[in-house]
């Protein structure tokens, strides 16, 4: 078992409030259909207030992980393992719809990628924010909820929050809509905030504002943040720790500055090289990772990255275990040498 948060000799009941109970603890999460594994052996924890990035190419299982955390997997996809939230008495894996309805939007909330389609087009924005507070009885009645909604819209710095509350989504820009989505997600002070590529669909000029709002939002609430993206620069500004995912597995994890300066897994190395817009190869082209992400279920046995990896050997037919060393971990038989 991996556990980077809880100290080894913490006596039970001894209150070390921050480190004792993680906001989210995921253990051996497996997601898949009857004959297809989509996510395998994913384990990680988020401490309260901790900001963790989940990175990887499209198709590596990041979004599916988020949906599994919310218990909103497509019907034919099942999860096993364990997902525990602080102050929630049951496991998200295997929880009933009724139980999950109390958790979603209250203890755990999510900001989705596409602000243009994430809001109901025929409902006033203020009502959509008010709904989540009414639903979890955070406000006594419609009028109070509506007033609180306007306050939330002001907190995400929408210009003219009163007017915005009366607007329909199509009357707002993409950036404004994403602020509304964030207002909805933060309305009930969730213990865990999941953000799935929250800025990918936005103009570069609005991205920074949005990131700033997310950071302020989680800091004010001491919410743990799981930030999914493929943009390494964004992770570096937002997160303290990073999980690198490929082929439905976590292949490397650790503090951002260490992982980004001294990656151990060839995949992380490849991601970093590919995002370096200054470095070029011998022919003057930007670096890329050879090959493409295989379709779900088409990843090789053993190490999922071995068919794209320059260092792969016969040994890589075996699944490399996630080896922990201090705060860092990597799953590779031939890790990138640490520079001396």
């Amino acid at each position, binding site marked *: 078992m991996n556990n980077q948060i809880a100290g080894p000799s913490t006596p039970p009941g001894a209150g070390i409030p921050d480190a004792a109970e993680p906001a989210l603890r995921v253990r051996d999460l497996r997601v898949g259909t009857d004959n297809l594994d989509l996510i395998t052996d994913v384990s990680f924890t988020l401490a309260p207030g901790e900001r963790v990035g989940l990175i990887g190419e499209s198709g590596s299982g990041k979004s599916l992980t988020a949906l599994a955390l919310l218990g*909103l997997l497509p019907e034919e996809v099942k999860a096993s393992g364990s997902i525990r939230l602080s102050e929630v008495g049951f496991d998200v894996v295997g929880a009933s719809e009724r139980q999950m309805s109390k958790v979603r939007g209250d203890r755990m909330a999510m900001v989705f990628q596409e602000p243009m389609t*994430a809001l109901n087009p*025929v409902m006033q924005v203020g009502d959509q924010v008010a709904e989540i507070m009414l639903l979890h009885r955070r406000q006594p009645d419609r009028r109070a909820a509506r007033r609180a909604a306007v306050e939330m819209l002001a907190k995400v710095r929408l210009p003219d929050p009163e007017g915005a509350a009366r607007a329909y989504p199509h009357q707002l820009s993409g950036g404004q809509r994403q602020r509304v989505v964030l207002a909805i997600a933060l309305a009930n002070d969730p213990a865990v905030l999941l953000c799935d590529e929250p800025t990918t669909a936005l103009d570069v000029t609005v991205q920074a504002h949005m990131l700033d709002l997310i950071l302020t939002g989680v800091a004010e609430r001491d919410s743990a943040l799981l930030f999914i993206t493929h943009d390494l620069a964004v992770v570096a500004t937002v997160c303290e720790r990073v999980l690198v995912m490929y082929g439905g597995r976590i292949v490397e994890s650790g503090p951002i500055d260490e992982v980004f300066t001294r990656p151990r897994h060839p995949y992380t190395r490849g991601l970093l090289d590919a995002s370096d817009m200054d470095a070029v190869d011998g022919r003057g082209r930007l670096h890329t990772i050879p090959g493409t992400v295989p379709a779900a279920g088409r990843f090789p046995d053993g190490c999922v990255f071995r068919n794209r990896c320059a260092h792969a050997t016969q040994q890589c037919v075996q699944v490399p275990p996630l080896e922990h060393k201090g705060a860092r971990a990597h799953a590779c038989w031939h890790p990138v040498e640490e520079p001396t």
Partner: protein
Amino acid sequence: MVFALSLLLASAVVFAFMAVLPGDPARVALGVQATPEALEATRAEFGLDRSLPAQYLDWVGGLLQGDLGRSYVTRADIGPQVFDRLQVTAWLVMAGMLVALVIALPLGVLAAVRHRRLSGMMLSGASQVGMAVPSFLAGILLVSVVAVQLGWLPPGGWVVPADDPVQFLRRLILPALALGLVQGAVVTRYVRSAVLDVMREDYLRTARAKGLGPYRALVKHGLRNAAIPVVTVLALQLATLLIGAVVVERVFVIPGLGSLLLDGVANRDLLLVQSVVMVLVLAVLLVNYVVDVLYTVLDPRLRRAG
């Protein structure tokens, strides 16, 4: 504006069709024994001796003042007749639509929610079968089973609701079912696909992420969105329902607009036919207008800014 233009265009088309039909209305009205003088007099009486454009303008001018003209055959005013019959047909169409909606809304939603399960597949299969049954056949079946063999309801006829509400309802049920069952099957399929589309929308996932259960999310956030395409289909189906009513009125011996139309055709009462068709066109255009208004109620994106 568009409304008026469509109406004008429709009147020209209807008039042109009637004008090119062979047969002299005066001869039809007076019979083969009529003397040339009598024919001449009748033609003059109805303005049939004038040029076609003049006749057309006459007719349209009358329509604008609510005067539908007089029947060539019975010489009675057409307007009051059409108005009486229109009320009957309106009851029939509305009742048929009600039956269709009562069937289609719950079954369509259910078929969508359970589309992966056996019950959902059976529902869409049943609606497929229902679509294939023409309403006159449904009418004949209903008459022979419910009215003739079981004797539960009268096989046909009509009672004005103000005269005897109970008898009115008893006579309305079977024709409304004949019309509505088939329409219900058609609309069920549209409701199902509209709800299925909505279920795949991102905002429904947002609603679930807020903590709404699957059914509440669908009811609160899905149905109004799904209603938009369904309303479009309902408007189109209302036109089909009007046509269906023409036939069903025959089966159930109901004195509606359809019977009047068919009588007019049989008697070669051209002006009557012309007027009934115009009233039907007007009804369809009105429905479309109402639907346009309804869109803006349902969908704020269609409202004009300001």
